[in-house]
C-alpha cells in the first residue's frame, strides 16, 4: 500500500511544524524520516496515522483519500517511542487487543486470536513472555511487543516514531538490524522517524531528510550521504569540515590549493564554502604533495580502531577534523603539537546564495 502526502501543512499556533510537504512512499518500502528535533518529522508521521489533522493538504493510501478518516479506521500500525503498552494487561492481552476490540461481526474466535497472537510473539521471539506484564520486560523486549501488537491488526502501513530512541546503544543496534530483517520478511510499507543518521542509513531503503518542516533531500541512503543536496544535509549526516573558498571557473581555491568544482564553471571569483568529510582528508607528516595545506596537530583522540585529529590551518576558521585508521596514524609518527600537511580528497562547494541553513 503506497502512501501519498500531498502538500500538507500543519502549524501549532506560531510554530510551523510541517511546511508544504509532498512525498510518496512506495509500496513495500522502508523509509526513514530523518531530521533534528523540531523538524516536523514526528508531526508528519502522526498526520499519516491520523493522530493529527493537517491544516491543509491531503493524505492518500493507495490513491484513496484518507485525510478525513478517523485514526481507528485507517488501518495503520503505530509504534511509539515509549512503547505505550497497556500497563494493566499481560503481553498476550496487549498483542490480542486490536483483535478483541473488534465488533462481534468481524472479531475472530478466541482460538483464532490465540493462535495469531502466539504466532506474532514467536515472530518477535518473545512467546515465553505471554503471561507477563510489560513492567517485567526490558526496553528492547517491550518495543518488540509493541511491534507485535501493531502487526496483529494486519496494518496496511507501519509507522514507527523513534522506535529505538529510548534504548541503549547496543540493544538499539541489534534491534534495528532485526527490524530490517523483519521488514524483508513481511514487506509492509513502513515509515520510521529518527534523529539518528546512522540508524536511518543502515536500516532504510530510502531516507527523507527534514528540517524546519520542509524536506531537504529525498533519496537512497547512499545518495543522501554521498551527494548531499545542500549544506544542511551535509552537516546533519555526519561530521563535516567547512573551508572558505574562492570559486573561479570550475575550481574552488582553498588557501594555496585548488579543488575541482565543475558545477561552477561559469562562476568568476565568487566566495563560497567547501564541505569536506573528516575521512576525506588525507594527513601527511611532510609536504609530499604540492596541493596540501600546512597545519598543526592540536588534539589527538583515539576512538577504538580510528584516530581523530583536530588540526589548525590558516585556510579554515574552525579546527579541521580528520579521521584515519590507527595503523596509518602510527605510520605517520605524528603527535600532539607537531606540524602536518592536509589534503582534501573530495569536496562539495556551495555558494552563499544557495540556501544556507544553520547546522
Amino acid at each position, binding site marked *: 500500500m503506497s502512501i501519498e502526502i500531498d502538500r500538507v501543512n500543519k502549524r501549532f499556533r506560531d510554530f510551523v511544524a510541517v511546511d508544504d510537504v509532498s512525498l510518496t512512499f512506495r509500496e513495500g518500502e522502508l523509509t526513514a524520516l530523518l531530521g533534528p528535533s523540531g523538524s516536523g518529522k514526528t508531526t508528519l508521521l502522526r498526520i499519516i*496515522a*491520523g*493522530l493529527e489533522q493537517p491544516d491543509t493538504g491531503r493524505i492518500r493510501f493507495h490513491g484513496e483519500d484518507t485525510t478525513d478518516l*478517523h*485514526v*481507528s*479506521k*485507517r*488501518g*495503520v*500500525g*503505530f509504534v*511509539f517511542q*515509549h512503547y*505505550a*503498552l*497497556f*500497563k*494493566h494487561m*499481560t503481553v498476550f492481552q496487549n498483542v490480542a*487487543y*486490536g483483535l478483541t*476490540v*473488534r465488533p462481534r461481526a468481524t472479531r475472530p474466535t478466541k482460538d483464532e486470536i490465540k493462535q495469531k497472537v502466539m504466532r506474532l510473539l514467536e515472530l518477535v521471539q518473545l512467546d515465553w513472555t505471554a*503471561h*507477563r*506484564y510489560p513492567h*517485567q520486560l526490558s526496553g528492547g523486549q517491550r518495543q518488540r511487543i*509493541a511491534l507485535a*501488537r*501493531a502487526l*496483529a*491488526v494486519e496494518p496496511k502501513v507501519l509507522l514507527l516514531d523513534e522506535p529505538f530512541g529510548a534504548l541503549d546503544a547496543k540493544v538499539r543496534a541489534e534491534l534495528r538490524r532485526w527490524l530490517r530483517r523483519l521488514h524483508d520478511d513481511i514487506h509492509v510499507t513502513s515509515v520510521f522517524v529518527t534523529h539518528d543518521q546512522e540508524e536511518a542509513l543502515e536500516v532504510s531503503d530510502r531516507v527523507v531528510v527534514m528540517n524546519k518542516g520542509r524536506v531537504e533531500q529525498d533519496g537512497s541512503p547512499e545518495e543522501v550521504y554521498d551527494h548531499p543536496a545542500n549544506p544542511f544535509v551535509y552537516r546533519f549526516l555526519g561530521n563535516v569540515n567547512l573551508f572558505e573558498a574562492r570559486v573561479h571557473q570550475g575550481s574552488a581555491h582553498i588557501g594555496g590549493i585548488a579543488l575541482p568544482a565543475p558545477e561552477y564553471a561559469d562562476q568568476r571569483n565568487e566566495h563560497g564554502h567547501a564541505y569536506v568529510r573528516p575521512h576525506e582528508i588525507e594527513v601527511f607528516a611532510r609536504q609530499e604533495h604540492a596541493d596540501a595545506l600546512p597545519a598543526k596537530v592540536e588534539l589527538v583522540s583515539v576512538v577504538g580502531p580510528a584516530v581523530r585529529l583536530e588540526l589548525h590551518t590558516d585556510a579554515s576558521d574552525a579546527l579541521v577534523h580528520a579521521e584515519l585508521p590507527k595503523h596509518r596514524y602510527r605510520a605517520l609518527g605524528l603527535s600532539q603539537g607537531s606540524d602536518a600537511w592536509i589534503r582534501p580528497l573530495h569536496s562539495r562547494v556551495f555558494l552563499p546564495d544557495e540556501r544556507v541553513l544553520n547546522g
Partner: protein
Amino acid sequence: MNTSNQAASEVDRADTPTASDNDALAKRWRRATEEPAWLKVTLITVALAFVALFLVLPLSVVLFGAFERGIATWLEAIRDPDALSAIRLTLLIVAIVVPLNTLFGIAAAWAIAKFEFRGKPILISLIDMPFAISPVVVGLIFVILFGSQGWLGPWLAAHDLRIIFAVPGIVIVIAFGTLPFIARELIPLMQQQGKEEEEASLTLGASGFKTFWHVTLPNIKWGLIYGIILCNARAMGEFGAVAVVSGRIRGETNTVPLHIEVLYNEYMFTAAFAVSSLLTGLALVTIAIKSVVEWQDERRQRRAAA
C-alpha cells in the same frame, strides 16, 4: 495510597543491611539516606502517639458512648422514625451526588489532562473553589440564589418548585462541596499518564468508548476509587452548608449529621453517639473495602507475575 506500605517496607530493609556478612563494615558504610536509630524511634513514636491521640481515641469514645447503655438502647436510637428518615435522606443524597461528581470528575480531568485549551488554569483553580469557601457561605450563596427572597425565588414560587428547605437544595450544596474530590484525584494521575496508551488503542482500531473502557478507566481505577470514597465520606458528613439550606425539618430535611446535632442539643447524648457510630462505622467499612480491593488486585498481579 500505598505510601504507608512503602514506608513500612523501607524500614524493614533498613533493619537488614544488604552487606550483612560484615556487620562492622555495614555500620561504617551506612547509606546516605539511613538515619540513626534514635531518630527512627523518635519519629515512629511521635507518629504513633499522634495517631493514637487524634484518631484512635476519639473513635473509641464514639463507639464507647454509643454502646455504653447496651445494644438495646443503641437499636432504639437508630429505629427512631426521625433517625431512619435522616439515614434514608443521607443515602438518597449519596446516591445522587456521588455518581454526579464521578461523571464531572472524569470529564474535568479528561479535559484538563488530554486537551489544550484557553482558560485551563482558570478551570483548575475553579475546581478547587469549594475547598476554599466556608460551607456556611456556600449555603448562603444558594439561599440567595434560590430562596423565596432570592434572585430566582419568585420564578420558582410561580412554578411551584421548592429548592431551599427541600431535598434539591441539599443535593445542590453537597454536590458543590464534594465537587473537587474526584477531579483533584484524577487530574495529576491522567496528566502523568499522558495520552500515548489511548492513541495506541485508537490506532489498533478501538472506538473512543472502547478505548475509555479498556485503557483509560483501568489506568485511573485506583485514583477513581479513592476519589469516590472521599467524595462519599464527605457527602454523608457535610454539615455547614446543609444546615443553612435544609431548614432542619425533622423527618423531612434532616440529614444524619444534622440529626446528630439535634439529638445532642436535646441532651440525648447516647442517641447522638449511637447515630454517630453509624457514620463512623460506614467510614471504617469504606476504608476496609478499599484495602481489600487493593490487596486483591496486588495478589492477582503477583500471581500473574509468578
